[in-house]
């Protein structure tokens, strides 16, 4: 056993404590960074006074500074110069401390991490203009800079109020990764942040649609809100996928074999529904509780 320990010690490059110079030395040259650093959340590591050198101040992130000082500067002499590091190395460095957050439980498998979009792509540690989270830009600008199609959706006539400041992208998404969206089938992980348990995030705000109902409209639970709604924005009222509601309902309610809860088709309309009459083109005029009902299997009440 002791031989294994000796071998382990030989393999792990130990950094002598005297390789660390302390943040006070760093500020000699980097006064611009130091000047407001007490406002930075990372200043806690200095203020606490009880953290080891490898978790304190500048060197907590950038590594021991002795070589950098002796070389009188230069990026290449900084053990962890983030602008020179590979994405995974950046992630490893930040997760040394930040892996403890529950919100980052899935960061190793998030779509962002797998696409090499890592911490410093969205966070600016020294020059953040944002009030919180050291974001490199306002959150919407940050997300829109890659997701231009989503920006277009939030500029449509009917949309969730993201540009207006009522909501943020992170109300529904976790950019650090989320758990698998098992409300759907083998869905790609769009980093959607769920509500309770495994519910869709829509239900965090639209609690009246959550149920449980004595009569659930099955696709709400089986396929999710996206089967009828566009979550970001739409040219149709109520973020619907179609401009008029009967074309939306008829897509599924056609009796086509093998679909639905009974395997024999989702019920087609009865012959009392004369589609030539405008009354029957407005399905939710009668089926008012279309998301689910306590009182009526056909969602009339």
């Amino acid at each position, binding site marked *: 056993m002791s031989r294994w320990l000796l071998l382990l010690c030989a393999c792990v490059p130990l950094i002598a404590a005297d390789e660390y110079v302390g943040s006070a030395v760093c500020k000699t040259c980097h006064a611009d960074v130091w000047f407001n650093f007490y406002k930075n959340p990372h200043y806690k590591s200095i*203020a606490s006074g009880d953290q080891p050198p490898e978790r304190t101040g500048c060197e907590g992130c950038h590594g021991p500074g002795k070589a950098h000082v002796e070389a009188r500067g230069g990026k290449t002499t900084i053990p962890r110069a983030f602008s020179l590091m590979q994405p995974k190395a950046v992630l490893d460095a930040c997760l040394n401390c930040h892996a403890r957050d529950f919100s980052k439980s899935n960061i190793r498998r998030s779509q962002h991490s797998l696409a090499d979009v890592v911490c410093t792509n969205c966070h600016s540690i020294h020059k953040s203009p944002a009030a919180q989270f050291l974001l490199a830009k306002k959150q919407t600008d940050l997300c829109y800079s890659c997701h231009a199609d989503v920006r277009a959706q939030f500029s449509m006539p009917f949309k969730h109020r993201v540009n207006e400041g009522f909501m943020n992208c992170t109300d529904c998404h976790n950019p650090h990764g989320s758990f698998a969206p098992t409300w759907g089938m083998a869905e790609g992980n769009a980093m959607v942040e769920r509500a309770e348990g495994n519910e869709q995030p829509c239900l965090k705000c639209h609690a009246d649609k959550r149920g449980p109902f*004595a*009569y659930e409209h099955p696709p709400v639970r089986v396929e999710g809100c996206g089967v009828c709604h566009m979550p970001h924005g739409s040219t149709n009222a109520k973020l619907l996928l179609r401009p008029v509601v009967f074309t939306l309902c008829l897509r599924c309610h056609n009796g086509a074999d093998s679909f639905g809860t009974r395997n024999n088709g989702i019920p087609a309309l009865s012959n009392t529904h004369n589609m030539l009459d405008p009354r029957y083109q407005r399905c939710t005029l009668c089926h008012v509780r279309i998301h689910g009902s*306590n009182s009526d299997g056909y969602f009339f009440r």
Partner: protein
Amino acid sequence: MARAALAQQVAAPTPDQAGSPRGENTGDYNVTDSVETGYRFAVVNGSVGTYRSDVNYGDGIRLFSANLSVNSRDGHGRWFDQIVLTATGLGNDPYQSVTLRVEKNKLYRYDMLWRLDDYFNPGLPVAAGLHLMDTSRHMQDHNLTLLPESKIRFHLGYSRNTQDGPALSTVQLCFDGNIYCSTAGNEFPVFENVRREQNEYRLGADVDLAGFKLTLLHTWVFFKDDSGYQENGLEPGDNPSTGVTLSQFQRSEPYHGASPYWLGNLNRSGKTLAVNGRVTYVDGKRNFIMDENAFGVTPLGAQNQQVLVGGDASRPSLTGDLSISVFPTSRLTLVNNTSIDSTRIDGTSDYEQYNLATQTADFISFRYLGLRTIANATDFHYRMKSWFSFYGGYRYSERRIEDIEDYAVPGPFSGATYVQQNHLQAGLLGVRIKPLKAMTINLESEIGYANQPFTPVSDRDYHTLGGRIDYRVKKLTLGAVYKENYNNNSVTLSSYSSHARTYSANAAWAPRDWFTLDASYSKLHLDSLSGIVFFAGIDAASPLTSNQVYISNIHAANLIARFVLAKRVDLYVGYTITDDTGDGRGSAAPAGISDPTTVIFAPVQTFPLSYQAPLARVSIRLREKLRWNAGWQYYNYHEDFGLESFYQGYHANTGYTSVSWAF
């Protein structure tokens, strides 16, 4: 020029802070503050209801924004080390928010978020002008973390979500003693007083132990809805030819419920191995009752009707996840995730309906819906060279759906149990190339197949193609994205297919401190084909089958330029347009058609419209800490064909003038 808030609409407050961003020192603290207040106006022509639904800014004085930060200069403040307070739109804006963070290093961290959304639904033609709503949603979240830097951290939280306001709902009545109107019914608007409320309490802890992090969380969610409905006055309804009118209506249907929720999560994150396991359990329950009284007149004379419903519903749901990420080398990432989700929905309803005399129809019915999904996904990412990597994945899902529908009265679904299973398999492959340090090219494709999809519009036989190219240097960002999704769901009676294509490009250029430019363009193209079945004509004997086509071809563009003139004037101009060109037709229905069903379905195959919003904003520094701001935004919404002969277009001039003060 990161401070240029390029996506801002004019409605949002001016992003620039006047004065020094470093604030002023007071004792052991540094304080920065900025406040912007002023007057907003809106002049609307056309459909005011649609404007309120889309934009909803009105006249009045507002606190456009406020930002306060107080920071301890040595990290050893007596009661706190940091306070950050932000506010937007307070006073009169339809979208208001306040955030607050108060933190004392090592001891506590408190976060608060308060929001208000004024929601207006004008009752668009999809509901025949009914379902009008004018409600407010208030949301607040409070989170307190105790000992935030220790190995054991405690979390307490409270959230509240309320929605209230007047609305119009609808009710269908026929007074024939039959639950589902065996005779011709009529639909009436009824006033609804919306009162919904949800309260959530959270208690949890994080524990760091031996390299693992354990999270335990318990929440108690209580929700209720006490909305009431009533109508006093003669209502001819949507179908006056039946001779059924409503003279008085009252309905109360309160429900109360709770969703106790447990979460346990175990996480270990290392440089070669990361593991995360999670279990959640939630047992949603609600109890409800409904009492409905209606008085009206039918061709048979005066009628009244009472409906009573009482019952409960429950939904226990269990979810488990296990995710393992392995990094055998610095170049290779392997991730496997297994998830299990089991949800059962069960309820009972006792239903009684009384008609004028003593006729009573009682029955008990319930529905059970059980869903169980098992999903496994394996992804890999191999960075072969610093400039070339490839990745892929395989996903498998199996879902079992059990349904029981039971009615005490004889019926086709009486007491029957139905079970179906669906397997979906999907594969993903992609490459990522960095020909230049600043350039990334990404190409990927996914193909999937499900054997028993739940609905005709679900994924069955689908594939996606995607590509992305990004070029990023300090002052210039260029990007372009292509995504294509094709799904074909053929069935015996009809077929459904959808083909969605998204093209987008964006550019951000900041050549000088005094000039930035941001532009984006997206083309969102969707065409789908649905097999539909319907009846045309009164009590038609045979259904008609047809294919319903829907084509949406949206061009969206955004252009924003920001100038700083003479170091004291900020000028911000922008233009946003959404233009759905539809399928290119010149009129809603092709000329010369007489077939009545074609007359109905042809005009809704496409819905061309345009929505434009140019804006301009100027901010002038009057003193070191004082600025004057003014903004203007014009909205123009136009529907080419309208819906069911309704045109909801509007144009509006909105703007504001304000002063901002900061130190």
